[in-house]
């Protein structure tokens, strides 16, 4: 598969009153046409900043001080403002987190959905509105023709999120970035939205970067998963690899804190103790070490490199070093390993 997007060694800093926040500290990943990559991690781990860097939609105090973001081999970070405007909403578009506040309250939704077309494609206003109507129907807004002239406040939260999605896909983007598109919605609506995204992906062949801190959602939609912690990826691989053969203790923690169908009554859910490090002054070694039950001396001194587990699966933990002692992961994870074996056997 050809890689349409490659992010290399991305570093993002924020200048604040208290000093420089090192929000992203060396992130690498790539995206192939038509695939879905999920990025998971706790709140504040840098998921949004990572994807916003791609579109350069960062706060004014942000500074992408290192790295490249190659889109079809061209570095987006070197593009002019105008070239970036041409990419946004056209080639790469984004779905935001909060449907309640993401729509302009004083503009009819028809116009809002048609806007990207008018900006990029130079189609007539009439055509654009026609296409907007079509896309609104596609995302499941009933009576789109009549409702085109309504304002956002006249729609429910779920409907607004569908409208936001309509805006993102109206121009058939090559890459769709969905930053927690379902967090603000209730569970049934969440499921509908996820199904909608999958359906749309099949129809228009978009690659999706899907951000969430809800691992439950990931299994249903993603091809690959990246786990993020304190501004870095700590583990990435295919869904099965990350879900059933996780290697990083942080991934273990995340998975352990997630209810699954397999979770029986007496398996209590563990949340990861402690809080993420202060990114104003990130630790020298592994950022997860202070919260890591399996932390070793080396974790305090040196950041772990990525160790290869399979062709597609990597994790950054010293536990994978050949000299490291063998550890027994939590019970829930051991169950997952068993399942992974079965998966492998059945293949």
């Amino acid at each position, binding site marked *: 598969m050809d890689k349409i997007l490659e992010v290399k060694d991305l570093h993002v800093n924020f200048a604040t009153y208290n000093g420089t926040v090192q929000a992203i500290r060396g992130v690498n990943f790539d995206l192939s046409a038509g695939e879905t990559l999920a990025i998971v991690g706790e709140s504040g781990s840098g998921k949004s900043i990572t994807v916003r860097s791609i579109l350069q939609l960062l706060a004014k105090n942000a500074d992408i001080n290192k790295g490249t973001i190659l889109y079809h081999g061209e570095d987006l970070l070197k593009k002019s403002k105008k070239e970036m*405007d041409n990419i946004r909403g056209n080639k790469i578009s984004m779905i*935001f987190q909060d449907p309640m506040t993401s729509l*302009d309250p*004083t503009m009819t939704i028809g116009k809002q959905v048609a806007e990207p077309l008018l*900006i990029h494609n130079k189609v007539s206003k009439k055509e654009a509105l026609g296409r907007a109507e079509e896309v609104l129907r596609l995302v499941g807004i009933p009576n789109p023709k009549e409702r085109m002239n309504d304002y956002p*406040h006249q729609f429910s939260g779920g409907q607004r999120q569908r409208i936001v999605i309509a*805006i993102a896909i109206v121009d058939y983007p090559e890459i769709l970035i969905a930053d927690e598109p379902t967090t603000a919605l209730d569970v049934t609506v969440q499921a509908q939205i996820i199904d909608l995204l999958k359906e749309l992906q099949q129809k228009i062949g978009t690659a999706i970067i899907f951000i969430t801190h809800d691992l439950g959602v990931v299994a249903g939609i993603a091809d690959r998963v990246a786990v993020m912690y304190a501004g870095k990826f700590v583990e990435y691989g295919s869904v099965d690899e990350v879900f059933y053969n996780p290697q990083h203790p942080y991934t273990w923690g995340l998975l352990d804190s997630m209810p699954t169908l397999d979770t029986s009554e007496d398996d209590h859910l563990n949340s990861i103790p402690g809080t993420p490090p202060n990114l104003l002054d990130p630790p020298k070694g592994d950022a997860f070490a202070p919260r890591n039950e399996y932390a070793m001396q080396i974790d305090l001194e040196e950041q772990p490199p990525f160790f290869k587990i399979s062709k597609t699966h990597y994790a950054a933990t010293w536990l994978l070093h050949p000299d490291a002692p063998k550890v027994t992961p939590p019970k829930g994870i051991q169950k997952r390993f068993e399942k992974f074996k079965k998966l492998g056997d059945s293949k």
Partner: protein
Amino acid sequence: MAKYILKRILYLFLTLFIIASITFFLMKMLPGTPFSNQNRLSPDQLAIVKAQYGLDQPIFIQYIRYIGGLFQGNLGTSFQFNNEPVTQLIGQRLAPSMQIGAQAMVLGTILGILLGAVAAIRKNSWVDTLATFVSILGISIPSFVLAVLLQFYLAYKWHIYPVALWDNFQSSVLPTIALAALPLGNVARFMRTEMVDVLSSDYIELAKSKGNSEWQVVIKHALRNSLIPIVTIIGPMAVSTMTGSMVVENIFSIPGIGEQFVKSITTNDYPTIMGLTIFYSFLLILVFLVVDILYVLIDPRIRLGNGGND
């Protein structure tokens, strides 16, 4: 909506009635006669004059008469100014006041919006600092201080504008500037806050992610959303412009109602004070009413939502 407006109009008249009543009795409570300035009148003459104005009647009768008169649009007769009816006084003097008031508000609002918008867009830059500085000056320096300074330099020393004269547009420039400073400062500050808020909102992010350039975002999305709330400060702006006009008209000798009001205060011309008080209140309550209706009309969230019908 119609019901709401009707209710508001009813409320307007009720408030006016209360204001009129309070003013009336306050004026009656005043010690001495309104003619204390003309103390050369003999007791007999005084009695005649009093009878002429109906001041020999019991207070209650006077009150009924006064309120009755109000309903016919009669605000009483001035003690000074050749016994002119107050309505007529207002009629003659309304135009200049309205002109400079409206000019000042329009000028202040437009400049304020521009200044506030630019400050918000270029937040924390020198433009922002400059805009903040200008608006603080506008808010802080009383209009009469500004008026006197303008008069001294631009009119008296440099002869760019007439010192104190009322004939053409030229003569309205300085009073307009003096009065526009405050609305300019207020609107600029308000606009900046609103716009900073709007610019950091999610829907602006979304607008950017659609590929709008910085200016397209401002023009298509940010401006309208920050402008709508500006409507809410038109009311207070009218109040402060009215306040300012009293002295500014005085300083530039403009034959307006503000100048008239100050004159009647210093000459104890009670009927005129009462008449103008009621007139001013009417005007301002009307402005507030119109602004509220306007707000309902331009904000889609209220227009089509559940507001407006209670």
